[in-house]
């Protein structure tokens, strides 16, 4: 499922400007690909798929997305006013600042949702009260 879902997510990402899809949906699909791996093989395997700090990935997405609103500001237009390339690129579609913004959203959504899912699964390590003993993840899996 992993390559299939990732391909679908990228398809959704570029399809999204005038049709259902876009950075948010694409990002959700990509992160669900990773989360499915985590459900099937555990968080260690899932972390190996995309070995980055997801928080940094999310921040990068925000930065990247916000960046592409700026050209309009420098051109004396309202923030996020769209700029498009005159000709569509074959196979990808029309490219302009909204697509680049969507790519930023894509990374942010992957980063945030995957980070949340991983935190929930790996929670015992980060459990706030050390005086309460928590069951390690591996044991829970054996019980299940």
């Amino acid at each position: 499922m992993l390559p299939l879902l990732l391909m679908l997510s990228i398809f959704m990402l570029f399809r999204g400007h005038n049709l259902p899809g876009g950075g948010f949906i694409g990002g959700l699909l990509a992160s669900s690909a990773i989360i499915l791996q985590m459900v099937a093989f555990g968080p260690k395997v899932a972390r190996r798929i995309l070995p980055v700090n997801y928080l940094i990935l999310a921040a990068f997405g925000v930065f990247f997305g916000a960046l592409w609103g700026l050209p309009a500001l420098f051109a004396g237009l309202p923030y996020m006013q769209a700029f498009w390339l005159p000709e569509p690129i074959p196979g990808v579609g029309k490219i302009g600042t909204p697509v680049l913004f969507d790519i930023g959203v894509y990374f942010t959504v992957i980063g945030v949702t995957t980070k949340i899912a991983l935190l929930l699964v790996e929670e015992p390590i980060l459990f706030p009260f050390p005086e309460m003993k928590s069951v390690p993840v591996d044991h829970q899996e054996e019980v299940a």
Partner: protein
Amino acid sequence: MTFHLFIPIVSPLIGAALAVLLHRQWVVVRALTLISVLINLGYGLWLMSVVPQSGPLVAQASGWLAPFGISLVADGMSALMVMLAALLMLTTVVYSFYSVDREREAHFYYPLLLLLLLGVSGAFLTGDLFNLYVWFEVLLVASFGLITLGGSREQLEGGLKYVVLNLLGSTAFLFGCGLMYGFAGTLNMAHIAERMATLADPGLQTVLAGVFLFAFGSKAAIVPLFFWLPSSYHTPPVAVTAIFSGLMTKVGVYSLYRVFGLLLQNELAIYAPWITLIAGLTMVIGVLGAVAQMNVRRILSFHIISQIGYSVMGLGLASAAGLAAGLVFTAHVMIVKMALFFIGGAAEQINGTGDLKKMGGLARREPLLALFWFLGILSLAGIPPLSGFIGKLILLQVGVSQQAYLITAVAAGTSILTFFSMLKIWNEVFWKKSYEDVNRLPRVRFGLLAPGAALVILSVALGLVAGPLVEYNTIAGQQLFDRAAYITAVCGADGCEAVYRAAVK
């Protein structure tokens, strides 16, 4: 069209994202935070210099036309609030440099502050009701992070109350948005204001006003929706409490002013007696709640509530003059309240506790700190020639001129109670002899003293040169109450309905 109106939103957003990306270099993070806040401050000052003459400035996001896209509108009140938010954030950032531990800094303390500034600036500038909700969420999420950062037991306890009760308010706000959209068919504030005049369903309009009063009232901590505030504000670090006291409840007050001043002007006449009653109760109950407390920051937290009563009283007077007076007072109290939190917090850090019984003797040990505290409480109580005097004087004048004698008397009486309550901290922390040897306590560092001192000096200056402030706010109050000018600024001379009709055809 003022395309650069987005700067106060873009600068903290990019600043926060970069600060997370570069979170290992703490020098870079601090520099980024400072630069973003300074950009906002400069832009806010520029806005304040322009807006009184030019009327509301407007920008349409992505260039989408007004009733369809999201508009940003900066009128006198927005400009003042954007500037104040940046100014208060600047003092908080400086205070944080000297007081916040490395552990918190490493866990995205400064990016969270910037996100808070982002949410607050967005809320002050937006001209769209649902967008206001979104900015509220942004600032609330950032504040959830800030209030629980550190994860100690009492922080989590306070944070839980804070989160749950704020979510309740947000839900009510969302209900209100939905009702409004179903009722008026639009969420653009100018368009709503225009349609409100023609739609005749007084019952539903009154319900809408009630929902918004509850929603923003719980954010602003009015009676009886205030209890989340004193139970959570004393738990995070001093800098966080201070910026919360300066900004969070005031965003609620701002939204009340905006929604009742612009959208539901007709309902304001109906609700005015109730709002005034709530204002009076908020003043008195806030001050009385402080009496029983024996912790510096808890006392100050109750006083936030009491002061909110004065801001709401400006709204209850239901006139441009009343709103202007409320704005003067709100601006004053944002500055002074934060100053008191900074100074009280510095005293707390020297003593290592905020418990009044265990503190003492600081007047001899730290005379400067004591001096600024004393000036601060004089200003809060409203002694001339400090800014609190001006703020209260104008409010009381408007109250008397509108024959609202009862609320005016309550407001005046509460001032005396406020002063008594503040003197308690003065006596316990600064004046009485300490049980311990005061000379063993650490000296206050310059960075802990300077932000509070700067704000107190600003308060003194505003009191001495009150003319421009009052003039500015008179214009801001008129702009806030002037529906026609707002609609013209956002949608053009023909109004939003004309643009809407033309596009729908």
